[in-house]
Structures are given as structure tokens and as C-alpha cells.
């Protein structure tokens, strides 16, 4: 677990630097056990920072979300750095963005936090249906110990963890300027759910996804919460040609979700933010994990690793190209 005092002290030191605009971390949310992203512009702001298994958001989404207006005459661009608190997966998102040259290493200061997995708020709600004001979470022998409203419950971690955290291969940040907490031993992704789905027939697969895509409302929370969805213009917003129609129906919804997954092939770092954000619980990580598995098996490639280029911008003369007729 990350020591809160240490986290705040580190954030304060960074936010005080002249070359830093602000530091993004987590603070207590507005109700129940919700945690909110927090922007510290001053050391006092950083006093609000917290870190716990309830810090589900991937803050790596923010630097590229900032809208830069055209400069007025005589105005200079604010080139100061942004500090970000990153968990293992979040740091991989930043690493992938670096690789794609979306951000420069010099643009950000990364406060890496060693992460033992975050809690799926939807699972938590089924265990604790009542409001959880001031929920305290600690860990003990592979269990979460939750205390709220004077009641303490001990629940095996696996029952509450976000699905993508159960087999996390990068609990310790892969890139950082400061590292807080103790390194956490990685697990191994077993792709169990993907394998289950792979065994289904085409009809069964369609039947499985049909119910899910049918309820998609195309709010694009999955896209906007994703640190790797940072295209200046998303293909779904493009009008001429219109790749995906605006009609919200099974066909267009399927097109949207599948096209988005393809655009993340070899780029998705598996944080699960999309799935967590989906207001209609579409298990988006099942598609993303399938592509991640394919990338590993077909190209021996993983996102956000030391490779110089990302997979889909790479060319190898010895590529067997078996799929090309």
C-alpha cells in the first residue's frame, strides 16, 4: 500500500516546481466510496490526494484530453509539465503514448504507485448495497478488509477486483520519475474468458455479443475514458465518408465497438477503464483481450514494451504474410 503522507509530500514537491503546471492525482469523491480525479495547482491542493484500491480511474487519459486553443498574438504556449499519479497499467498507457509520439517524455512527470489491484465498483455495490460513506479499505492475506458504517467485512480480493487486475502483469509501473510503495510481484494473464469465447461457434459468438451491443447507447464513454483513444478526430465522428452511421442500432453499434477494438489492436494496455466506464456494462475487455492475445500469438508483440515502433506502424522484410493470398 502507498503511504498517503509520502504521496502528498511527493506531489507537493512536484507541483511547487516552476516547470510544472499541475499534478493529477486522486481525492475522495463526492459521495459514498467514490474516488475522483484531482488536479493540484498548489501544494495545498495536493493535501487532498489519496491512494487506495478504490482509485479506479486511469489518469493517463488527461494530458491528451486538454484542449489547446489557438494562441492570441503575443501569447506563448504553456509548455510546463504535467504531473500524473500512475498505477502499473496507467504507466503502460503513458509508455505506449510515448512510443506513438503522442507525448514526449519531457511533457510529464510520473509519480508511479505500486498497485495491488483496484476494486470493481459494480462488484462492490452487489456486496454492499447500502451507501458506503467513508469506506476504508485495507488488505490482509489476499483479502480486502472493508470498513464502513461501523461494519467490517473481509472479502477475498478476487471477488472484488476489477477483472483486468486479477491477472495483472504490470502491477509495478514500467515508467516513472518517482516510485512509491513496494514493488508488487506480477501475475500471468491466462486469457481464460477469451479462450472460452474462442471455443464457441460463430452463431454462438454472435448471439453472445448481440445482446450486449444491442444495449450500447453510443455515449462514447469507452472512448473518452481510454488513454489510447486520442485521435484528433475519431473515425466515428467523421461525416464524409461516414464510417459508422449515427443510427443507434445493433448493426452500427457492433460496427462501432469492433472498429474501436481494431484501432486499439497492439495498443490497448489492458487497464479496463472502458469496461468500468460503460453505463450499460458491455464487457469490452473481452474483445480487447482477444486482440491482445492474437497480437502475442501472431506477432510476438505486446503494447507499451521497449519496441521502437508500435506494431501497426512496423514493417519486417521477413514477415511471412501468410494471410495475404
Amino acid at each position, binding site marked *: 500500500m502507498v503511504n498517503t503522507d509520502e504521496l502528498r509530500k511527493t506531489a507537493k514537491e512536484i507541483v511547487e516546481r516552476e516547470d510544472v503546471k499541475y499534478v493529477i492525482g486522486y481525492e475522495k*469523491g*463526492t*459521495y*459514498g466510496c*467514490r*474516488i*475522483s*480525479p*484531482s*488536479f493540484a495547482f498548489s501544494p495545498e491542493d495536493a493535501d487532498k490526494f489519496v491512494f487506495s484500491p478504490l482509485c479506479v*480511474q486511469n489518469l493517463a*487519459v*488527461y494530458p491528451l*484530453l486538454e*484542449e489547446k*486553443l489557438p494562441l492570441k498574438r503575443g501569447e506563448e504556449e504553456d509548455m510546463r509539465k504535467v504531473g500524473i499519479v500512475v498505477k502499473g497499467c496507467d504507466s503502460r498507457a503513458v509508455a505506449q503514448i510515448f512510443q506513438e509520439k503522442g507525448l514526449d517524455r519531457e511533457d510529464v512527470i510520473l509519480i508511479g504507485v505500486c498497485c495491488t489491484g483496484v476494486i470493481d465498483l459494480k462488484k462492490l455495490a452487489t456486496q454492499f448495497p447500502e*451507501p458506503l460513506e467513508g469506506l476504508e479499505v485495507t488488505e490482509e492475506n489476499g483479502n480486502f478488509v472493508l470498513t464502513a458504517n461501523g461494519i467490517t467485512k473481509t472479502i477475498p480480493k478476487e471477488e472484488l477486483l476489477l477483472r483486468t487486475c486479477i491477472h495483472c502483469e504490470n502491477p509495478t509501473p514500467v515508467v516513472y520519475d518517482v516510485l512509491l510503495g513496494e514493488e508488487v510481484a506480477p501475475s500471468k494473464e491466462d486469457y481464460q474468458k477469451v479462450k472460452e469465447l474462442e471455443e464457441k461457434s460463430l452463431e454462438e459468438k454472435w448471439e453472445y455479443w448481440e*445482446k*450486449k451491443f*444491442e*444495449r450500447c*447507447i*453510443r*455515449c*462514447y*464513454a469507452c*472512448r*473518452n*475514458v481510454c488513454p489510447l483513444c486520442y485521435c484528433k478526430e475519431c473515425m466515428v*465522428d467523421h461525416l464524409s465518408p461516414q464510417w459508422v*452511421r*449515427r*443510427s*443507434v*442500432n445493433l448493426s452500427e453499434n457492433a460496427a462501432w465497438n469492433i472498429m474501436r477494438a481494431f484501432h486499439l489492436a497492439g495498443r490497448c494496455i489492458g487497464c479496463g*477503464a472502458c469496461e*468500468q*466506464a460503460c*453505463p*450499460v*456494462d458491455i464487457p469490452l475487455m473481452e474483445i480487447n483481450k482477444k486482440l491482445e492475445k492474437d497480437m502475442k500469438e501472431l506477432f510476438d508483440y505486446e503494447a507499451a514494451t521497449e519496441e521502437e515502433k508500435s506494431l501497426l506502424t512496423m514493417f519486417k522484410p521477413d514477415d511471412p504474410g501468410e494471410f495475404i493470398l
Partner: protein
Amino acid sequence: MEKMILKKKNLPEFVEKALKEYRVIAPTDNEGIIVFKEITNPSEMMLNYANTRIPAKSVLLQQTETLFTFSQGKTVAVTSPEVNDKTLIVGLRPCDAQSLAILDHVFGGDYSDPYVEKRENTILVGLTCLNPEITCFCTSTGGGPSCAEYTDVQLTDIGENYYVEVVTDKGKTLTERASGLFAPAAEADERKKKELEEKAQNAITRTMHTDGIAEKLEEIFESPFWRKIALKCLGCAACTYVCPTCHCFDMQDETAGTRGARIRVWDSCMYPEYTVHASGHNPRPERMNRVRNRVYHKFNYFPKNCNVIACVGCGRGIEVCPVNVDIIDVIDKAREVNL
């Protein structure tokens, strides 16, 4: 107002009867997500829920609606879809019913929107909200978990029976057709209803202070506060699409070969594209402008134009926001802004 009881086990029969005459829309369960859907059998109804994920506006202002279809050959043929059937919405919460009264202001203007006719043809059978969620705050926005003001018939689950309040003439017609299923309510039923109603009221823990909010917002439009509030917003449309009073739409012609349709689909003021001009200029270039607009639309423009706040306190927007942008928090903090 007539007060009766309906045996819970008789509700399916009531719906069965209604199905002969009405298109019946009810909450249904899609893998744990509760949404309004047309049903053909009472067994498809799912009435054990806190609230539907998508509000009842989706029935009258469908997310995708065909306004007319067209085909092009030697001549151009334009066909309008048939006028809507008589519709019954069963099991909507008081907040959703209230939201329709708000949408009436929007669509009931000088030009007849398809919404208006649909609304006239729709009967609302509300269901009192006995287990409000942590995000609910309807008692702050002029409603309440048992508010029957905006429904035609209001049901309250009092155990073995539903306590039935017949609110309007439409509701009266509906219940009279199945009068055999209803019995007069006894005093004990009323007591039970009152007791549950109070419990539900007390279960609502969150409060939004809306007194004078329109006037306050009038003063703080230029405040840097809005920039601060919008920092964490991701700019997705989750809050607007699950909001029962958000009603913006876009229109598109979707064609295939020589045939096509003019459709209207929900749109969101949270998207940059929403306000972008043909010239490329965007009068709301930053998320700050868009977040501020959404708050102003509900708490300033709407009160100024229609004398009512365009928020019913259903809490959906708070619940679905991935980054905890919380409208109660925004309004509370806006009240404290000093210029």
C-alpha cells in the same frame, strides 16, 4: 383522486388486458441492465429495480427515430411512418414521469413535434420508488419517491397488494376497463402506503439546494470556477444520454442506393461537434464551455424560459460518470462562488 388496491398477483392480468389495446412498454432486464422495452407478455416485465438505466424519455424521444423514408427513381417518393399506437408505460419512477412534464415544454411549441402526439397517446402507470439509490435526490427538485403528480395511475407496492392512485381521466379510463381487478382501498392500506412512503423519503440522503440558483448562475457565467469544474470531465455523453431531461438531437439522412431515411438521433452538448459551425469555428471550443452550458441549460435557461428546473434528481448522471462529476456538488459549489 380515487384510491384502490390491486392484488400483486393480478398485475399480469391487468397488463395482459392492456396488451390487447395498447403498445405496452415496461422495464425489462437485459443481462442485469434494466431498460424500457416493448413487451408482448407480462412475464417480460422486471419491476424489482431501483431505476432503469435509460430513462423513460427513450419511449417518447427514441434514441433513433425515423422521421420519413424516401426513395429516388424517376420520381421521388416520401413516406412518413404511421401515427403511433396508443401506448402504456408501466412501472416508471416518479422522477421519470416528472421529466416528461419538463420535456412537454420543449416539444409542445408552435410546431408539432412527433413527441406531442405520442405523448397524448401515452398513459403513464407509475411505480413508487421504495428503495431509492445513494445518488437519488428527487426530493430536492420538486418531486419525491412517491410523487403521483405526473403519472396517470400510481402504484405503490404495499406487500400483497399495490396501492393504486388514479390521478387523471386517462388513468380512470384505463382502470375502469379492468375494474374487476381493483378493490377499494381500506384505511390500513393507506396507512401502510404512508409508512413506506415516509421510509423511502428518509432513505434519500442527498440534497441539492436549488433556491435562487438561476439568479446565482446569472452572475457567475464568467467565473474561472467553470474551468475548474470541467477539468476532470472526459467529454463523453454518458450523463446526457442517461439524463431524463436532456433532449438534444441531431438529424441525418442515411441512404443506401436509391433509398434512404431522415433520422433523428440523440445528440450531446458534451461533444465538441455539437456546436461546430460549417466554417470550422466552434463557439464552445473547450470542455469548460460545454460543461457550463449543460449546467446553465438545466438551472438557468430552463427556469428562465419555462419556470422550472430541468433536473428531476434521478441521480443517473452522477451514477454513470466515470470521473465523479457530480451535479449536486457542482451546484453546491456554484452557490459559494464569489466574484
